[in-house]
């Protein structure tokens, strides 16, 4: 299901207030998003843990409402 970019951004910012966030609409249909999140909150966590943090932030929409989400997470140096 489509989701507005602003809604996506709000959810991510709420969970990662000090992150550098890039959101890209891959297909121009509000339904295929690429999220790039760089946050100190990810420091020391495995990629799986980082992605699970994002999944929670997105209120577990991933896989349902958000079925096509490309996720890139990193901890800034």
């Amino acid at each position, binding site marked *: 299901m489509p989701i507005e970019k602003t809604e996506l951004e709000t959810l991510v910012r709420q969970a990662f207030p000090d992150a550098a966030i890039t959101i890209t609409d891959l297909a121009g249909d509000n339904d295929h998003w690429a999220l790039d999140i760089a946050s100190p909150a990810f420091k020391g966590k495995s990629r799986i843990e980082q*992605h699970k943090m994002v999944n929670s932030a997105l209120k577990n929409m991933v896989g349902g409402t958000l079925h096509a989400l490309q996720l890139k997470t990193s901890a800034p140096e």
Partner: protein
Amino acid sequence: MTDSPIFDRIKEEIAANDVLLYMKGTPTFPQCGFSATVVAILTRLGITFKGVDILRDQELREGIKVYSDWPTIPQLYVKGEFIGGCDIVKEMTESGELQELLTSKGIAGAA
């Protein structure tokens, strides 16, 4: 319910295959771009793996998401350890981490 037949099935399958990919479709005919990407990566690295088509089995499709605590397919397991989905596998391949991981677990590739 921590004990259920589907979890037992999953545990057995993960234990019986060094490299196991829960995917949509089959390795020869993937039914989704993300699954196809992981298949292509494993194939290019010359890794022998088993593909399990979750589209044919609704119970497995739901069960594996609960088992792995991961909401999407594909899901890659190496020697019983959950590695991640398409994004993670791609990143690890680009950085060389996946190749290192496979080597360290004694899994040979053609590369």
